[in-house]
């Protein structure tokens, strides 16, 4: 009798998703799918709005990373306003970059402490009631406290630049709304209610040392778990360095050969398209030249470190060298190494924030530039989870007529499906009993991608959990419903 095991939803990722595993009559995994059940419709929602509203409206797409959408949209409307990134004032660019680094830093901190650490600290077969951040706090109070304060640091950077943490206004067409004041700058340079940026660097370095030590003790499962060859995509500077705000698009295949050779972001549509599958609302982006099967890429910290030649900040660069040397200076295709890569990126962000905060010119008041209207704008940045694309077209009145968004998690759609298949085959094949630990392993693989599957939907009791098992004739033989909140 065939059994279809359903894990619904994936735990501890942003929003929710659904995994179905299909077994054949011998109990062997035949296939596995990661279903995205959320349909957002934002691209239609924003049509008809004036272009200058886009950076505000898109913040409401997702309460987890509103700043990423805000900045990507801002870059797009800069172009509609007649300005390219190099046309903005140095002060405005520095403030936007500081905002972005603050956002990535706090997002990575959240993922590591809240999502990944229960997996890493308690192991693959830990009981469900142990796999949460309260247990992390019980077993390692200092780690939990640092995680909270690192999140708080990033959030306070966002608040200082945008005016407030929610619905803040940072970027406007051609620049930014507000400068940074000296007392605000000093809050981040000195110890107080918020630790200083220097403490952020120290703590992040400790986290990188932790993950390396953890890897040394657990390298077998970390190297092999959910590992599969893939392409990798990210932004780089003209010198080939890691770049999160403004750069060129680079992709490599699993062996390190370039499949996208540092192309301008404005040309993205010449190289990418999106496939669809009937079992998921989420699309599958891929490189046109390589087709649906070979042209898909991972995005996010692991991909970014793979495509970059180096990192411009010293401590992170040293860590990158060690990271790359572990895989023989070839692309790392070990999914669990995403956690390691994520922490190296946190260190890079902390170092970059230090540089920007120590630069007094960030207090400048030259915040805006003006240009001549264009009918179209494209904004691409590296959000915490990967490459984020915002593309708008407007009519003569400046009203948005067309919008195309490719969010980071969409790029990773195929990679997450591959990870689910890998784990399913390894842990569920021909097993007579399915333990919760086995099911958790499928989720561990997905969590490594730090996916964000929904958009700021939060209501108590909104997301009931459901698990379904079907026999070979698609009859429901087991149903389990769990209430959240």
């Amino acid at each position, binding site marked *: 009798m065939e059994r279809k095991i359903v894990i619904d939803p994936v735990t501890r990722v*942003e929003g929710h998703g659904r995994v179905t595993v299909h077994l054949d009559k011998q109990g062997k995994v035949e296939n596995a799918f990661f279903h995205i059940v959320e349909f957002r419709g934002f691209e239609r929602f924003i049509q008809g709005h004036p272009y200058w509203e886009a950076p505000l409206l898109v913040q409401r797409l997702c309460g987890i990373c509103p700043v990423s959408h805000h900045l990507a949209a801002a870059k797009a409307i800069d172009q509609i306003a007649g300005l390219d990134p190099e046309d903005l004032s140095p002060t405005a660019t520095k403030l936007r970059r500081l905002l972005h680094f603050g956002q990535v830093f706090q997002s990575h901190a959240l993922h590591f402490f809240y999502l990944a650490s229960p997996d890493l600290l308690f192991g693959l077969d830990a009981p469900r009631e142990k796999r949460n951040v309260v247990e992390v706090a019980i077993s390692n109070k200092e780690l939990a*406290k640092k995680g909270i304060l690192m999140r708080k640091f990033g959030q306070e950077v966002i608040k200082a630049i945008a005016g407030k943490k929610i619905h803040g206004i940072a970027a406007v067409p051609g620049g930014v709304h507000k400068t940074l004041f000296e007392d605000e700058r000093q809050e981040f340079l000195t110890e107080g209610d918020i630790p200083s940026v220097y403490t952020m660097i120290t703590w992040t370095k400790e986290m990188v040392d932790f993950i390396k030590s953890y890897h040394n003790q657990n390298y077998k499962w970390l190297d092999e778990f959910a590992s599969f060859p893939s392409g990798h995509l990210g932004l780089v500077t003209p010198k080939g360095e890691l770049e999160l705000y403004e750069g060129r698009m680079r992709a490599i295949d699993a062996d390190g050969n370039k499949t996208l050779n540092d192309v301008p972001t404005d040309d993205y549509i010449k190289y990418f398209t999106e496939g669809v599958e009937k079992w998921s609302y989420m699309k599958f982006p891929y490189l046109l030249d390589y087709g649906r099967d070979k042209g898909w890429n991972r995005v996010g910290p692991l991909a970014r470190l793979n495509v970059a030649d180096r990192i411009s900040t010293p401590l992170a660069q040293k860590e990158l060298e060690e990271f790359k040397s572990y895989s023989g200076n070839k692309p790392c295709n070990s999914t669990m190494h995403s956690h390691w890569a994520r922490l190296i990126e946190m260190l890079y962000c902390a170092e970059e924030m230090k540089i920007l905060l120590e630069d007094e010119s960030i207090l400048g008041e030259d915040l805006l530039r003006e240009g001549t209207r264009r009918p179209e704008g494209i904004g691409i940045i590296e959000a915490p989870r990967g490459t984020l694309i915002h593309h708008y077209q407007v009519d003569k009145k400046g009203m948005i007529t067309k919008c195309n968004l490719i969010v980071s998690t969409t790029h990773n759609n195929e990679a997450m499906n591959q990870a689910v298949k890998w784990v399913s085959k390894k842990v569920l094949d021909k097993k007579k009993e399915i333990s919760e630990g086995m099911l958790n392993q499928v989720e561990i693989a997905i969590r490594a991608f730090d996916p964000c599957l929904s958009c700021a939907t939060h209501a108590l009791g*909104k997301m009931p959990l459901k698990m379904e098992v079907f026999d070979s004739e698609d009859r429901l033989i087991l149903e389990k419903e769990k209430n959240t909140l």
Partner: protein
Amino acid sequence: MRPVELNSSRTVLIGIGNSSRSDDGMGWAFVEDIEKSSSFKGLSYLRYQLQIEDADLIKEFDHVIFVDSTQEITEAGYYWKECKPGDEIEFSTHALSPNTVLGLCEQVYKRTPRSFILGIQGYDWELKEGISDKARENLDNALKGFKERFLDDSQYIAA
């Protein structure tokens, strides 16, 4: 505890939700209305969803009130219940519960402010602005009940 003791500078009111998703915006609408009334003596905040750093926020207070929309079917259109630390297992950071935030506060800071959850029943969760008429009625009832019970010094209603 007398109901009016919640109305103090040592109380924090946290509205949770997304005003761009119809009835999911009731947490914010509730807090914004209370802020306008100027009779609430505590502090108030808005959140898309609770995050781990909110454990750091609530440690500063003696009482915490979390306000959010709910899909639960309620008799009065809303419910009011005490929030206990770490009672529930989390499945998504998109839904970091008040209980988990309180549990984190207890473990990390050794503080457990007395906390409550006000859940207001909603019906429409689509991507659009504006609360549905039916949910608006529940919101108004919740506001009326809250103000009468906690903000009106002339009435002491048994908890």
